[in-house]
């Protein structure tokens, strides 16, 4: 919604209409709340009031154990922080990306490292939990600068997500920075993150997420557990009882009330998808009731990819690096 602030009111109306559809017959109790989509801090405080009123009108928020708001260092103001605190939010997820100015510039970010440090400082001193996103395999990035960003973020944050910069072949940066080579360059950075973060108590609890035990983002865990999720807004995807509902991606279409597209998963598909999603996490999958073809797929792969106990199967560090291969093997076995 950045640059389209004049459309916020109609978006809020549409959101309310959508919330009413879910919460029309009595309030649904929420366990976690996540306000994301990049930059919810473009809303001013009165707009935030309206948003929270909508949520409380249609959902039971008293059951919430975790409420997160995404923010960018350049748009997160002290008044946002105190509003979020006053309204029961427990975490802020901050798009830090890097603490090296040249890297932030390459990424085309609107903030610099000072703004990022300042924002982290503010969140930390507010008492809210802080999660930070970091990006690796940025052109010009070295293991030394990657180490610098991670170490400083660890001083403030209790949760770190590491994402590789992946360039699509049609992105201008793709050819400028040597495309495939760049995409292949993630290995060293990722491996280094797998090494350094756990040494500071940030355990890898999912392919791209690290946190000290007890500080994991429970909202995200619900995606990997196939829990029901209600998602509102353009391009939001809900998952309720084995059915996915995907809202139209464009703001116009969303505001005009176009219905979400649906996708219903068969029980078999659900089992496979759940296995693949659970295998993203350090807890892995339970072997009780696991499809035999999945067991077989796993036993046919090199053992160093897995951590196998009598009860559960999870990916090893190396397995986490080769997830796509492993998951597509599982899909392959599931069909044969």
């Amino acid at each position, binding site marked *: 919604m950045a640059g389209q602030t004049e459309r916020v009111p109609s978006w809020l109306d549409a959101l309310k209409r959508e919330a009413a559809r879910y919460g029309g017959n009595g309030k649904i109790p929420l366990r976690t709340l996540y306000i994301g989509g990049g930059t919810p801090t473009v809303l001013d405080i009165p707009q935030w009031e309206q948003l929270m009123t909508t949520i409380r009108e249609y959902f039971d928020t008293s059951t919430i154990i975790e409420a997160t708001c995404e923010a960018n260092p350049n748009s997160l103001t002290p008044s946002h922080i105190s509003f979020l605190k006053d309204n029961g939010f427990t975490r802020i997820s901050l798009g830090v990306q890097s603490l090296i100015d040249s890297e932030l510039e390459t990424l085309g970010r609107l903030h610099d490292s000072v703004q990022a440090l300042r924002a982290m400082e503010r969140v930390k001193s507010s008492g809210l939990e802080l999660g930070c996103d970091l990006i690796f395999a940025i052109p010009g990035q070295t293991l030394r600068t990657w180490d610098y960003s991670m170490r400083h973020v660890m001083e403030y944050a209790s949760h770190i997500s590491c994402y590789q910069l992946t360039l699509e072949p049609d992105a201008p940066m793709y050819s400028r920075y040597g495309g495939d080579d760049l995409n292949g360059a993630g290995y060293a950075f990722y491996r280094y993150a797998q090494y350094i973060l756990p040494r500071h108590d940030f355990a890898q609890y999912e392919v791209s997420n690290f946190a000290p035990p007890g500080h994991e983002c429970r909202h995200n865990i619900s995606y990997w557990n196939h829990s029901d999720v209600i998602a509102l807004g353009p391009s939001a*995807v809900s998952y309720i009882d084995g059915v996915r509902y995907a809202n139209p991606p464009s703001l116009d279409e969303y505001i005009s009330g176009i219905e979400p597209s649906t996708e219903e998963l068969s029980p078999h598909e659900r089992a496979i998808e759940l296995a693949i999603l659970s295998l993203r996490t350090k807890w892995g999958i339970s072997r009780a009731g696991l499809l035999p073809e999945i067991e077989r797929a796993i036993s046919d792969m090199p053992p160093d990819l897995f951590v196998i106990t009598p009860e559960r199967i999870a990916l090893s560090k190396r397995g986490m690096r*080769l997830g796509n291969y492993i998951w597509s093997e599982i899909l392959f076995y599931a069909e044969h």
Partner: protein
Amino acid sequence: MNSIRNFCIIAHIDHGKSTLADRLLESTGTISSRDMKAQILDSLTLERERGITIKLVPVRMDYTAKDGRKYILNLIDTPGHVDFAYEVSRSLAACEGALLVVDATQGVEAQTVANAYQAIEQGLEILPVINKIDLPSARPDNAKQEISEVVGLDASDAVLTSAKTGEGVNDILERIVSDIPAPKGDPNAPLQALIFDSVYDNYRGVICYVRVMNGTIKAGQNIMFMSNGITYPVNEAGVFKPGFTPVKELQAGEVGYITASIKTLAEAQVGDTITDANNPASSPLPGYKKVKSVVFCGFYPVERDNYPQLRDALEKLCLNDSAVTYEPESSEAMGFGFRCGFLGLLHMDVVRERLREEYGVELVATAPNVIYEVVKQSGEIVEAHRPSDFPDASEIAEIREPYIRLSVFMPSEFTGRVMQLVQDRRGTYKSMDYITPERVRLVYEMPLSEFIVDFHDKLKSQTRGYASLDYELIGLRASELVRVDILVNGEAADAFSFICHKDQAYNRGHAAVTKLKGLIPSQLFEIPIQASIGRRVIVRVNVKALRKDVLAKCYGGDITRKRKLLEKQKEGKKRMKQIGKVSIPQEAFLAFMQADMSEK
């Protein structure tokens, strides 16, 4: 019979044979220039597109000479490519004379010489014709000199002509009448007719193009093919006016066609003798032999499901090309297909093209190979068509492979490069002659297997297209050949085995494993790829294990997208072939099989 002249045209591919033939037809009023175009285009689309004339249909022309007498001129074409050497010899056998056409701007080319020699050996009267004299770069005197130097013919009275402008065409017609002898033969002797070509027609069955040597042939007559004893009653006898024009009978000395509801070309082979079943000749005409495939390759449908379509297409194609052989073959990598045999590389290309154009079959052709003869320790001799046919190395006493004698004509500046090229391919030097100070003929003997892999293209690129070549098979010779096997993760991958000379085993093995390294995607473990001779590994490379492939983000909206990505990856795996624990994409097999193994 005295008024008949049977002749052919010997010319290099682009020296203007077709144009000259057109002119002759026009000048004799056999056909108007407009019809001419249509006729030629109709029958020769494929050849025209490829820029190669394989064969023109024979034609009969009525010509009134300056002496006022009427003559019948039968023009019988010879195939313009070395693959069809046997057909050439049969066409020549149907003639008493030949026009030797040489381009005044290019001089004598290899193919021309080979065919001219053959014509001379068969006792034909050779009439040298220098064509394209209208071009500014024409050097007719040089061309004459080359003819006398290389072919050994007196070319001082060669006809100078331009098929393009028509200049000299009447002189050619007069010289055909005056120089080429009339056919000899006894119309009352038992029938002997030479099949110099045969084509398949959907409605009439096989049409045999014949030259009657002795006796007569007519509709209703019971004829017999002397090579196989099969008999048929003749439906129709006729001449090429052009187009099929029935006549009452064909007499000794005449050229024409017969139909007899013959079902397959295999029954009416080129070179065979037709005789009267009720009054057979005592012996067939000399020179018949069964054509043997010398080059082989596998044809596989691009889509595995299209195997029956490919089979039907091959069956139909063989109705009018009896020189193609095929037998079912299956490859673990590519499924069901056919191992096909051809007269040569061009023939192979033509067949592949025909399958595509005429029958709509998309196929993959594996790299061509030759037949080897393996002498076992026990003395037993086996033919090996593919690497897997080779017995265990310990059982082999000797391996023999087909050799060719190769002659290359080229401007002398390229001599060094061409010698290098031929020597790299195990060629043995035989001779080098300066035809003129600027032009050289090199003669080498080399293994056919080295020739069929890309040699012609390499020669053309080394000589900027100025070289021409000709070859003839000269038999089998013992060679120090080895079978190189490729092991993927320790497992033999049969589809990648190949035969080569032991001195090339390392280079080719290296090329093969390097190529495969690029084709086999990284997997969860390191994959050694080895080339070995028997148990001895000669080269090894490793496909490094995959290190990282994770698309990191996967939350609510990403899940469907992620699953689609994985589904796609999985579909890719489905099309892969497992060798041991290694998955190899089909594309890798295809790329490998079509690869030029000589690339270093």
